């Protein structure tokens, strides 16, 4: 009954030229290739927050959970722990992931839970029409900061590395082939994977020209080396004018939080009653 075409009937309402189109195209290509390689279609679950990025769940015809602002990560962890057969792929904006829901992101990285985070990092609030985000550069003039921000951005990749994430990468919405490669590797990675995508918002913070001049793809970078990863991640602080590396910064094999739970075993009502009554004997 299911159309294996991954498109829904929802009308796409992103602005023409929006970087989200590249993420949509890349993830659908990756999903198709995973399905072709044998991943059961029904074992994909995608989750989004609230913002322009989040509409992506309406546009892809797979199991989805359109959650609330900043709360993608707790939802994803619940889904994954409840059903470990699922490939849980999360889309979150920079406002969601690095602002409203930052604590969840840090804890999920710390637990190394097996989910994939794809961050649509346009460094501006789009759906609320143009305010600064945790990754906007110093001096960013938005509607809530008309004279420029007085605070430095956070470097989310450095934060993720120190929190325990085991797969850290950066993509760019104009490098489609790299995006596909990064998404696929992130999804196949067993553990907490985060891909920060420099996704350009053409309406409120058009960075195409700037990024085109400054980005480069990491070459001969040892992804197993924590200190080298840290150096590379620190090369650009999301504010100063410096080269912006794209690709996988860090990758590590480690045990995953979701490995540690008992399997749900359906219990017969009378067996359960007997078990409860037996335990009650300890309370006399």
């Amino acid at each position, binding site marked *: 009954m299911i159309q294996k075409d991954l498109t829904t009937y929802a009308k796409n309402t992103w602005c023409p030229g929006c970087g989200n189109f590249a993420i949509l195209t890349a993830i659908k290509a990756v999903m198709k290739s995973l399905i072709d390689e044998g991943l059961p279609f*029904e074992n994909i679950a995608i989750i989004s927050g609230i913002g322009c990025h989040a509409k992506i769940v309406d546009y892809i015809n797979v199991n989805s959970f359109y959650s609330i602002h900043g709360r993608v990560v707790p939802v994803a962890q*619940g889904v994954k722990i409840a059903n470990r057969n699922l490939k849980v792929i999360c889309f979150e904006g920079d406002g969601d992931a690095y602002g409203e829901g930052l604590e969840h992101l840090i804890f999920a990285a710390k637990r190394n839970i097996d989910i994939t985070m794809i961050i649509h990092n346009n460094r501006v609030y789009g759906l609320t029409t143009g305010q600064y985000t945790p990754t906007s550069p110093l001096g960013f003039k938005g509607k809530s900061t008309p004279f420029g921000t007085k605070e430095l951005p956070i470097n989310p990749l450095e934060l993720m590395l120190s929190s325990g994430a085991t797969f850290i990468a950066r993509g760019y919405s104009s490098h489609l082939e790299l995006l596909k490669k990064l998404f696929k590797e992130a999804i196949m990675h067993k553990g907490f994977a985060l891909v920060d995508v420099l996704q350009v918002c053409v309406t409120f913070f058009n960075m195409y020209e700037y990024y085109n001049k400054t980005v480069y793809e990491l070459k001969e970078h040892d992804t197993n080396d924590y200190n080298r990863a840290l150096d590379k991640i620190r090369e650009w602080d999301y504010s100063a004018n410096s080269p912006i590396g794209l690709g996988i910064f860090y990758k590590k094999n480690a045990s995953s939080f979701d490995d540690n739970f008992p399997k749900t075993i359906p219990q017969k009502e009378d067996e359960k009653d007997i078990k409860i009554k037996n335990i009650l004997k300890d309370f006399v």
Partner: protein
Amino acid sequence: MKEFSLLLGGMAGDGIDKASLILARILNRLGYCIYIYREYPSIIRGGHTYSIIRASQNKITTHTNKVDCILALNQDCLSLHKDRLKNDSFIIYDSDAVKPEGLPLIKQLQGIPLDKIIKEEKALAVTRNSCIIGSFCKASGIKMEILEDVFKRNISRELDMNLKVALKGNENTKELFKLEKISERCFPIFTGNEAISFGLIKGGLNSYIAYPMTPTSNILHFLASLAEKFSLKVIHPENEISVMLMAEGFAYAGERVAVGTAGGGFCLMTEGLTFAGMAELPVVIILGQRTGPSTGLPTYTGQTELHFALNAGQGEFTRLVIAPGDAEEAYFWSALCLNLVWKYQLPGIILVDKTLCEGTYSFNIDAIENIKKCEPVLWDRKEQYKRYLNTETGISPLAFPSDKDAIIKINSYEHDEAGITIEDSVTTKDMCDKRLRKEKYLLEELIEYKPVRVYENANSTVGIICWGSNKGVCIEAGQNLGFKIIQPVVLSPFPKEEFKSAISGLKKIICVENNATGQLIKLIKYYGFDVDEKILKYDGRPFSLDELENELRKIL
């Protein structure tokens, strides 16, 4: 003796909690029904903490202010509680730590040198409580075999040492009277929190998620200890926001889930609560009230969150709010709540308080009503799957991720039947109606379970209305004074007709609540009812039986 009440008090860190449970289980062996009231400060060492252990030949779920015996491990215990003594009460105290001065005339007073005994026996300081238990058993003529057996079942560390000092306490005490065995019954004794935990398991719980917060932390601890036995996934995430949203992830994936918190944590859960309403995800929330607002008295009780539970969150949606009154009800309604939220796909709140959560009860599982099986409605695979299929009852059949041929789309935005975001007026109204329509069918089903409970004296023209943990104290006071007791257990959807028939014929209605503003009164006023008198207590403590009887007599 028909009933016997004793107070054990000392400093935080003296092991009062455990010792009072052991005393209760000793009295239980004599065939008594038990209730323990625990009062303790929000500190780990020092400060005064005590328990009142009441044993009765009848089923009881409340304590009395007056006690027959005080076991004092520190001076505060005598100074603070001397007014609880009756003429024939007796006191056993640590003669190394307590001076029995300024007391009313007491016939029986026994000092035991606890410090000296534990030094002689080279025992740990915390075993002073075992020593005084040994002393109590002698004073009340309880055989040491009973103490020994209860110790063996309840003490895992340093059992021999505890038995040795208990024996010393016993040898150093005179027998004052004999507490005889009154029956052969011997129920398990545990807290409301443990009853809720068992109830959730009975209701098919797969996972429990919580951030620690008094008074419900012990549900988290207890279920974590049972995780392996019942294949439970028990998780303690970074905060209550995460707790609620994680639970919704579980519900989406088809696992029965509950969360637990107090008012402060529930504040953080409200965005998730309304999400559950919109997305129609079944989650049970155990909401344990304590004295607010804000941090308030974190380890004391209150009933101030009725309207919070009923109204928390933006938007309009169907929710189930149930306030059980004692451990057996907590078991029954927790199990039922989990079943019902899965059938109707909505959030359900078990509204309890510190009195019920941390009060200790005799628990008779055989007296609990049958919970009829109510299964969730599942997708029949005949038509293409739509998560929000608009049906007559408002209930859309369920499928879960990994189910073949179904695409399950959950949405916090207003959505169409397939779960895709919409903004048009017709679908907006239709979907709102769909979610609210479930309330009618839910209420119809709840009627079978008697959502408004009525207790003796049913023929009285004076009625006491109460909710939650005040059930027990109101029933007992009502029995003694000959009143009818009305306890609405289900508060949303409100069983208006059942409530109306319960109060019909009453000439005088008195409402008893642990809050300052009469929250149940406000609720029933909304449905066109009113009360004649109210008895409100909001000092962080529950009503004791004698206190409530005095208040009721004042009114009449």
